[in-house]
């Protein structure tokens, strides 16, 4: 026989102001099976919880219903209290009479009636409750980090320093990501490669980090604690362990004029066998087989092979598939820049001296194509006037993206500042919509560019750029003065908008995590769970989540790492027991459940007789993957799936309690 205790919470005046809590308790006491019903000012307080515990003990309760706030708030509080008295935590039910009643209704009488109805439903439900045990999942204490940019590097180092093995996968031949391409970084102007390369080297040398560069994720299966991943290690054509990085091979390669350097954003050339930049980690070249003469001309050229001392070049190496088992994954796949060609009026691609912000970084950089001397791509002259255009693609729902790329205001101010430092007497003009400089030291930084370096900021957009007599004529509006302006510039730098890395949507699908309409990965909760993806065991970091600057990327890498170290600090992972279970007797194996499961938690299971003959194939729920959403329950025609804690019988009892 059920022995139910009912507690009606006032929540101060939050509930009691609109709901007659005394009446709710009186009505609850009349429901068969309810042994006692009380009201109390704050059930979540210590004395409130003690009242609950006392009644469980003294009245020997088999179930508890609290009429209180949303279970999101205090379900756990009350469950823990119940456990202390030896009651299974899933015998606590909450009728939400705050968010669903007092906060949304005004008429006290009707609100009280609704509160009583909700309470009745829960009493009928709890009578049908069954004890539920939480699911324990074993953990493989090894992490996979996808992406070797600053956020991925930070995540990998933090996890590795926590004593956990890490596999870092990077698509390019070297780690470093976009940050290693930058010159000096705002707002402190520390040189990017000076602060980045030590971290890259630390990754390479770390005993807990296994680094796969020039490699891509091929396949992911499994679930939190137990992912199986396949990594495709693309053929580098170099026997890595023998290479000394001496450079004899790329110095002799005849293909040195035809291939644009990705690292220098097309501002210089590279060879067919190359390292992307001198500080590359690992300092091991790769042969770009799409341009190498050996591969294109049937093996005739092998100059690099002849020049190589340790003979570590092997043209026959093939792609390799490496299988690894990991317990957690960080997706730090980074970003790309939008296509500037979308803006024909700016003449990108048409005029050589209209360049992107990232290209300007390379022109400023001491390791760049001009060794840090600002020179125009067209004729190599040092420009005296540069026009910077912000929001190229960003905040432009018509042609670009509606969101703000967040870093452009700051890097443009930095560009103007560095330009003033490098070319004395030069002049910068910045066309902007708004200036967004909201982090520590940012506003002062932009002010400094305006006031100390004399950059002229014009609020407005550029309508047209054309070439005239070796100059770029920039026509635009200065909306603050209301004037049309025309500037004869030597160079134009476009602050191009940020978009997710190409293929991030495919990556998300492979990982089974959700992403927004732009392709940025979405967080499990935008505020309270910013490091977690929608899938347990997969964490997010860096620009792959959305525009952010270096400090934020570092923080997000560390956040993902701390989540993983926290996860791995236990011997097993506990999942709430409210998951789906299949009645294998009645299941006919149509697998609509499998089709609708967003978590890939349902697989096929063969039921066999003692001779091993397959009798039938039924659905099986993987308790580690199931999130308890109930989509499968809905999809099942024969009602062969039930959700623990929300059994059909419980729902039915709730509905029936309302029948008059």
């Amino acid at each position: 026989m059920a022995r139910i205790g009912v507690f009606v919470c006032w929540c101060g005046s939050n509930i009691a102001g609109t709901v007659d809590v005394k009446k709710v308790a009186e009505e609850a006491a009349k429901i068969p099976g309810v042994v006692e019903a009380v009201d109390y000012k704050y059930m979540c307080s210590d004395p409130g919880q003690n009242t609950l515990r006392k009644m469980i003990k003294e009245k020997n309760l088999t179930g508890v219903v609290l009429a209180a706030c949303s279970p999101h708030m205090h379900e756990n509080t009350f469950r823990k209290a119940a456990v202390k008295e030896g009651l299974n935590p899933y015998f606590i039910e909450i009728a939400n009479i705050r968010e669903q009643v007092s906060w949304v209704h005004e008429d006290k009488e009707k609100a009280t009636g609704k509160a009583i109805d909700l309470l009745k439903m829960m009493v009928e439900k709890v009578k049908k409750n069954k004890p539920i045990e939480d699911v324990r999942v074993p953990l493989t204490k090894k992490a996979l980090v996808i992406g070797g940019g600053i956020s991925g590097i930070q995540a990998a180092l933090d996890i590795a320093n926590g004593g956990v093995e890490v596999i870092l996968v990077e698509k390019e031949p070297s780690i470093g990501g976009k940050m290693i391409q930058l010159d000096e970084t705002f707002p402190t102007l520390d040189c990017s490669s000076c602060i980045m390369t030590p971290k890259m080297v630390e990754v390479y040398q770390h005993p807990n980090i296994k680094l796969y560069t020039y490699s891509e994720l091929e396949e992911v299966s499994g679930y939190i604690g137990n992912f199986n991943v396949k990594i495709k290690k693309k053929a580098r054509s170099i026997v890595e362990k023998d290479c000394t990085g001496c450079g004899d091979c790329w110095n002799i390669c005849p293909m040195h004029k035809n291939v644009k350097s990705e690292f220098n954003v097309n501002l210089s050339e590279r060879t067919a066998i190359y390292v992307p930049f001198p500080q590359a980690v690992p300092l091991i070249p790769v042969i770009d087989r799409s341009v190498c003469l050996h591969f294109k001309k049937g093996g005739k050229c092998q100059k690099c092979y002849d020049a190589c001392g340790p003979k570590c070049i092997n043209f026959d190496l093939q792609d390799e598939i490496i299988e690894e088992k990991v317990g957690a994954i960080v997706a730090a796949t980074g970003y790309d820049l939008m296509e500037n060609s979308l803006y024909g009026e700016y003449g990108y691609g048409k005029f050589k001296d209209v360049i992107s912000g990232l290209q300007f970084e390379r022109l400023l950089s001491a390791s760049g194509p001009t060794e840090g001397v600002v020179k125009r791509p067209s004729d190599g002259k040092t420009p005296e006037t540069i026009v910077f255009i912000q929001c190229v693609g960003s905040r432009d729902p018509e042609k670009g993206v509606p969101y703000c790329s967040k870093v452009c205001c700051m890097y443009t101010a930095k560009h103007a500042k560095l330009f003033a430092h490098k070319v004395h007497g030069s002049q910068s003009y910045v066309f902007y919509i708004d200036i967004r400089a909201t982090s520590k030291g940012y506003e002062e930084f932009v002010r400094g560019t305006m006031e100390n370096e004399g950059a002229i900021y014009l609020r407005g957009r550029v309508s047209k750029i054309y070439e005239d007599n070796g100059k770029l004529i920039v026509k635009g509006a200065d909306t603050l003065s209301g004037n049309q302006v025309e500037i004869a510039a030597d160079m134009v730098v476009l602050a191009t908008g940020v978009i997710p890395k190409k293929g991030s949507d495919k990556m998300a699908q492979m990982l089974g995590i959700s992403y927004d309409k732009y392709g940025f990965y979405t967080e499990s909760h935008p505020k309270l769970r910013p490091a977690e993806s929608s899938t347990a065991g997969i964490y997010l970091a860096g620009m792959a989540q959305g525009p952010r600057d270096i400090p934020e990327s570092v923080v997000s890498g560390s956040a993902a790492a701390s989540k993983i170290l926290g996860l791995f600090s236990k011997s097993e992972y506990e999942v709430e027991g409210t998951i789906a279970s299949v009645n294998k007797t009645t299941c006919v194996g149509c697998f609509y459940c499998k089709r609708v499961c967003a978590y890939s938690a349902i697989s096929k299971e063969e039921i066999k007789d003692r001779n091993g003959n397959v009798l039938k194939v039924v659905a099986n729920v993987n308790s580690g993957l199931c999130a308890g959403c109930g989509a499968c329950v809905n999809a099942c025609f024969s009602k062969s799936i039930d959700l623990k804690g929300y059994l059909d019988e419980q729902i039915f009892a709730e509905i029936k309690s309302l029948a008059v």
Partner: protein
Amino acid sequence: MEKMNDKLQNIAKKLLENKEVNLIIGFTKGSNPLRMRSVFITEPNDVSKLSFNAHCVQDLAVFLKKPEVKKFGKIGIVVKGCDEKAVNTLIQEYQLSRDNIKIIGVECRGVVKQNLADKGEDAVKQSTVYDKCLVCEVHTPLLYDELVESDEPAFEINGDIKPYAKIEELDAMSVEDRNMFWQKEFEKCIKCYACRQACPLCYCTRCIVEKNTPQWIETNIEETGNAQWNMIRAYHLSGRCIGCGECERACPVNIPLMLVNEKMARDVFEKFGYKSGIDINAKPVFGTFDANDFNEFIK
């Protein structure tokens, strides 16, 4: 017709002799010359029983769900275009392996309504065939291993007869009137479940109506339970029903079930662009979760 039957019998004989199948499900002549019935053939010598004509109304795919048939393993089945869509759906829903079924498709020109045939009607005309034949897009089955071509000409459709005309009529009604219409129809239901038994896609071994913990559908023959049963069955078939019309034909109290099924099929096509039974690899419309869905609630 004789040519068709010869070809049909030859195919069947070959399949049985070569042990490509262990059983052939087909049509044979019944005691009433204008009624055809199902026949199950396991011996090559028996193939002469196989026959096909415009009275082969039954959707033989219904037998594929039965354990006593399944135990034969490899099965050959004679199907019209509409029935073949049921085979496709069974494969799509993992109830049948494509490797275990030999589809003997028969080109069909339409089948004569049985109530007319019972009065002696033998001609295939727009006034004598079922509504499904008037809207049929699969006179030649979509998928088959063997095909028996028809030697009959297609019948003429001049638009005098509007198939499923009642649907538009019902659509035009007020909600109350429409409810009244269906209430009256469902009132007749005696819960014999013939509709379910005749349906090739009602293959659950435990139907939802038989689930009694809790009892979602009332089993007594009263208004509520009758409506519950018929509506839930309609929902379970939406996006799945292939329109063979067997439920309506099996109904002993003449509930126009095809109006519901056809209306559902039209709605599914209009809203999701999906037609059932076309492609064995298609994702069923109500079993589709797509990460590309631009619905905020999914993300």
